[in-house]
């Protein structure tokens, strides 16, 4: 789901860069030293998780776990995802320098919606964890599909993004299992306010 350079208009990419750097300054300010070390470790974890290919329906999907990042990092999920995407762009050419802002806003929006859903406190925890994991994938997929439709690529990506429903369900289940495990093994981790 990383948009490469040359696909979206330059003006959009420039505007998205400005917005994402602004969001980075706002959501990353007043971070204390302990927090920033945790965020760094969480960004490393997010990067490592993106390298994991999970078997699903005869094929494999690579994990994003943006929902889990949102649950663990709250509003600080945006700087974490920005850093992980920058790393992926530089190391593996997933995405592009020009589209880094668009990609960060797409994935970051998924994580922030997941964080809001988790912290809303509505409904039982396993259901919230599942939904947070799923929206972490669905929100970026819908945003990318809308951007493609607006950039005159037709509505094809909406159909392509239907393929992500399976990945969203898998990430929802995985996120629910991880949260249940963390609640048993280290509940304090779920109450950290970053």
């Amino acid at each position, binding site marked *: 789901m*990383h948009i*490469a*350079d*040359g*696909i979206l208009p330059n003006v959009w990419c420039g505007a998205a860069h400005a917005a994402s750097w602004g969001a*980075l*300054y706002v959501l*990353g*300010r007043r*971070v*204390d*030293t*302990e927090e*920033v*070390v*945790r*965020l*760094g*470790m*969480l*960004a*490393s*974890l997010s*990067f490592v*998780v993106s*390298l*994991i290919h999970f*078997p699903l329906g005869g094929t494999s999907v690579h994990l994003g*776990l943006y929902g*889990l990042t949102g649950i*663990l990092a709250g509003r600080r999920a945006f*700087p974490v995802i920005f*850093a*992980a995407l920058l*790393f992926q*762009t*530089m*190391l*593996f*050419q*997933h995405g*592009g*320098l*020009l589209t880094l802002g668009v990609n960060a806003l797409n994935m970051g929006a998924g994580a922030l919606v997941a964080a809001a859903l988790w912290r809303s406190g509505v409904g039982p925890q396993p259901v919230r964890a599942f939904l947070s994991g799923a929206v972490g994938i669905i929100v970026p997929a819908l945003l990318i599909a809308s951007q493609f439709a607006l950039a*005159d*690529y*037709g509505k*094809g*990506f909406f159909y*392509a993004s239907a393929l992500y429903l399976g990945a969203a369900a*898998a990430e929802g289940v*995985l996120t629910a*299992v*991880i949260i*249940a*495990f*963390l609640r048993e*093994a*280290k509940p304090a*981790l779920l109450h950290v306010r970053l």
Partner: protein
Amino acid sequence: MSGLFERLDPRARLLIVLTVIVIVSSTPRGVLLPFAMFVPLSWLLMMFSRASGFYVLWRCLAASPFILLAAGLLAVQSGFDQASVLAHWPAAASVALKGYTAAWLLAFLTATTPLSELLWALKKMKAPESLNVILCMMHRYTSLLSEEYARQERARDSRTVRPLGRRRFGVYGRQLGTLVIRSWDRAERVHAAMLSRGFHGSWPEMQPHRLRGYDFAFGGLIAALFLLARWIPF
């Protein structure tokens, strides 16, 4: 001995590649002629460095899925019949060429500039301090966490005699949960160790590079060549 490109300040390398990507991406859809110049110029840029062409080509193929998907969607946006695909193929081809040229340039940048130098360049270009620290932590700890996960996988495989089937969600979930806890614990240990060494939110920086006239001249020349290629045919 390093190539001409590697002798540039990392900030200049980053800005040159970004500028060239902006110029290439600004080519209107359906316009293919400038690529007759962009491709050789990108190759020429690589000749000024010690990067391997095959390595850069291999790396830029990583961007293929998304580029080909975008080009394919553009080609079939009005339908799958031959006439409408043929009507849209120049636009699809230009998007694919823009995507691959940009991916080539990005792969070239990472082949010629170590990650530590790119991080240094971002820091010097006034990226937020929190981002710099997060990136430096990632640079240091990503390989450690990858090894940790690989060890977990080996342990899981050695204890699994049958395919996981439906249990795989539970097994993978607990494995990832363990990785989260170990990462968190490691973060606390690392933080304590950093505090004991006088860490107060940022690292002292060294100044291994500086911008010279050579950086501006090289950058200006490359940008001018790509700008000419972008506008001359029209």
